Structures are given as C-alpha cells and as structure tokens.
C-alpha cells in the first residue's frame, strides 16, 4: 500500500501556551486507510487534524517543529487552501461550517473559491449529490436541517473538492444514535466505494471499530500506541489509556477469561456469534 500522509517528529505549541499540544508525533497513513484517532479530552486530536489540514501553522500560529508531508507536499510550506483541498477537514459543530442558503450552493462553495468554471462545478455538485444520496435536501436551507443532515452536507461539501483524505473531528458527538449511524454509513461508503482515506477523531469507538483498519491512541500530545485494529484490541485493554473499551471485543475477552475459552477477537455482534460458535464446535 502506498503512503499518503507522513508525519515526522512533529511538535506544536500554540502561542500563549507553555506546553506542547503535539509532542514529537510520528505517524504514517496509507491510501485507503480508515484510521480511528482516540484519546481523552485535550490529548491533541483536534490539533493533529489541524496540522494535517494546514490550519496549523497557517491559521493557528505557534512553535512548529518537524514536518507533515502529504502527497509529496510539505504542509508548512504551502497555503491552507493548497493543502485543504487534498486533506479536507469536517468540524465537530456542523452549524458553524455551513454558511450558504441552499445545500447545493453549500456543496459548491469550495469549488467557487477554487474558481472552477460553472459547467464543471455543476457536474461535480450533481455527482456529489447523487453519490451521497442528498437529492431530497438539494434546495433546502442548511441552517435549518437536522444535526445528522447537516453533518452529511458538511461532509459532502468537503468531498466536492475531491480530497485524498477526509479528516473528521468528532463528527458524531452532537448526533442522536439513529443519525449517527447514517452518517457512519456515509463515511464508510466514501472509504470503501470511493477510495477516500479516512482519519476520524471520535469517542464512540463501539460504532466505528468495525469499519476501521487502524487505531491511533494519543495522550498529552503524544501517540501512545498505534496499529492494526484487531491486533491492538487483542493486545491491550484500552481502558488503561483513558479510552472507553469497545463493548464487543471486551465481551469476548471477558468470556475467554472466565470460561477459559479462546474466542477470536470480534468487532461486530455477528462476528462474535460466529467466532463463539466456532470455538464451541472446536471444543466439542
């Protein structure tokens, strides 16, 4: 697999703070990855996403060491818009990232700024609306949509710029479970069918773990552990890193311990049931 993002010895301190919000971070992200970024509040998730998207060090100033390279571009040497169209960032609060008066115009906003000619822009907007199933929202006012719809429009507005990687900062935190699941399905579709690399900061591991192939756990500006989802879950109890343990993998581990079984690590209920059956059959 080819490398898309490479972060090398990155440290960052915001002006007016006396500590590093990112502390010697090293991370590589491959094309097609679905990476889950987790860690307790204040550990630097948002800061890391800003550093990949170019807001750091362009919009947020401070002390910057090391480098972030994305598609052979060194982030700190380019303007935000040059990086933002490769690494699109969706923010936590949908309300503040929707500024226009119709969904189609919202989706076009980034393309307008990039001075894409109108015919081309219409084609891209239509395709985005079709692929992401937003036809019924097309003429609605973004400010008056439900939270889940707003978050989808925010994602569509970034996807319209056809970035290589989609960075999402706690996109589910303001949503009810039902909307959250439909937003997750959309993100998964972008990853699986449209080949977008995903890096998502989120506390709700239970919902996202089945879709992710890698987990990164941070604390106090450092990356504590990082690796393939299943092997991380096999090796560690995430609770020790101040992260909520995801329920299903934990359930398997507990049952294994109590009944002295060896059920394989499972990410979904179905998988768990299958693995459970297999283990029982093997035993009998």
């Amino acid at each position, binding site marked *: 697999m080819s490398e898309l993002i490479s972060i090398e010895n990155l440290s960052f301190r915001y002006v007016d703070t006396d500590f590093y919000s990112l502390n010697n971070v090293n991370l590589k992200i491959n094309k097609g990855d679905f990476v889950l970024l987790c860690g307790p509040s204040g550990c630097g998730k948002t800061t890391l996403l800003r550093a990949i*998207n170019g*807001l750091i060090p*362009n*919009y947020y100033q401070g002390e910057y060491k090391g480098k972030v390279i994305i598609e052979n571009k060194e982030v700190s040497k380019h*303007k*935000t*818009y*040059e990086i*933002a*169209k490769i690494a*699109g*960032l969706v*923010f936590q*609060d949908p*309300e*503040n*990232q929707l*500024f*226009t*008066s*119709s969904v*189609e*115009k919202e989706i*076009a*906003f*980034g*393309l*307008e*700024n*990039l*001075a*894409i*000619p*109108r015919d081309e*822009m*219409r084609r891209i*907007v239509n395709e985005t609306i079709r692929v992401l199933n937003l036809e019924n929202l097309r*003429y609605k*006012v973004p*400010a008056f949509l439900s939270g889940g719809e707003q978050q989808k429009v925010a994602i569509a*507005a*970034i996807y319209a*710029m056809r970035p290589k990687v989609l960075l999402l900062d706690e996109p589910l935190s303001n949503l009810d479970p039902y909307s959250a699941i439909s937003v997750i399905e959309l993100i998964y579709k972008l990853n699986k069918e449209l080949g977008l690399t995903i890096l998502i900061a989120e506390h709700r591991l239970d919902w996202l773990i089945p879709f992710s192939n890698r987990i990164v756990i941070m604390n106090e500006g450092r990356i504590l552990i990082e690796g393939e989802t299943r092997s991380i879950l096999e090796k560690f109890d995430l609770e020790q890193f101040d992260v909520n343990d995801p329920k299903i993998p934990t359930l398997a581990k507990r049952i294994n311990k109590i009944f002295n079984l060896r059920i394989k690590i499972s990410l979904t209920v179905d998988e768990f049931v299958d693995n459970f059956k297999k283990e029982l059959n093997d035993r009998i």
Partner: protein
Amino acid sequence: MLRPENFIYRPKDTVIHRLDPRSKFYYAFLMLVLAILTIDFNLLLLLLLFTLFPILLGKILKQVLKAIQSSLFFLALIFIINFIFSLNVILALALVIRFLILIISFLAFSLTTSIDDIALSFYKLRFPYDFVLALTLAYRFIPTLFKDAVNIVDAQRSRGLETQKGNLIKRVKNFMPVIIPLLVVAIRRALNVAEAMESRCFGASKRPTNYYELKIKFGDILLFVASTILFIIVLAEILGLVKIAIV
C-alpha cells in the same frame, strides 16, 4: 408584534421568484419614487393596484397580509396624525396608501429574492467578493445568533436574572449579563466560521466563480419595459403633462 419570518424569503417556484433581482429592484424602486412624488388619492390607489400583481403572481399574499397586520399600528398613527393636522380624510388616507405602497413594493422584492441572488447582483456590479460574502454571512447567522440570545436569556433567568422589572435604566443594566456572553459566543462562532471557510479554500482565488448565475430573461425585459412605461405615464400625469381618466 414584529415577526421576522413574515419578512424573510422562502424558496418558491413562481414567475416572480424566477425574475432577475435587478429587474425586481428596478420595479420596486420606481414604485417607491412614484409613491413619494404624488399625493393624489386616485393615483396612489392606482399604484396600489399595480403593486398587487407581483404579490399575487409570487404567491406571497399571506406573508404580505401578516406583515401589514404587524404594521397596523403605524398605519393608524399615520392616519390619525395627518387627520389631526389637516382635517382632511382623503389626504390622510392617501398618506396611508402611500405607506402601504412602500411596504408592499419592498416586500415584493425581499420576499421573492434569495440572499444569494442579491449577493450575486452586487458581485456582478463588481463589488469585492469579501463584501458580498460578508453580506450573506450576516444574513445567514441572524437566526443562529437569535437562538444563542434566547438560550442565554433562559440560562440567566434560571439563575434569577430579572429582565421584565424595574425602570428603563435598571432593565438595560439587567441586560448586561445577556449582552456580554452573547458577544463572547458570537466572537467564538465567528472564529469557527473563519476556520471552516479557510478549510473550504476561501481565498484561493481573487475572483471566485459562482454556482448560480444571473440571466436577463424575457420576463425581466417585460417587467423592465412595463415598469418604465408606467413610470413615464404616471410621472407625466404628476407633472400635469397628460390627464389620465381615473374613476
């Protein structure tokens, strides 16, 4: 009560909504000028009749009636004051009609024209992009800030803030615990919005393209010609050059 939703554009698919904002503005402006130039009761009545066309064609009668309803107080005031000073019922009524024409032609424009189209007109007139965007953003965040204000008032009331008691100075003072947090919230919002715009490549080009386009269509030319003719005739009548037979 002044309710903002009676003055706010709602998307609808009618002949009037589809017109170019520039031709609509031209029409509204001419009506305004005529209404101010004349004080003749019959002529004003005729103009009032003309303002009804876009209201009916644009299907905004309900909103317009509600808006008039909320300005009944002013209409009554205009009538009473002018009647007291002139003791002339016709004149007082004419002034009321003039005011109605002003409201209705303004509404015919504002209720059928989206902020995007208005902004685009400015942009076409070579106003800087920053200014045009600031205009749409201000409009976009009015309901949001209103919601923030209501939330803050509720929160402060639940901590015992009195907003309905005392004399004027006391009430204004009592609003400080609302104004300060509202300012903080608004500034924080503005910073977030700026950050989000940055991430959507704002500033990448000096002359961004536009998703919507403004095109002068047949209806616009028709409206332009019709309102110009109307304007000339009525102006001639006002200046006493011609005499229109009005029953």
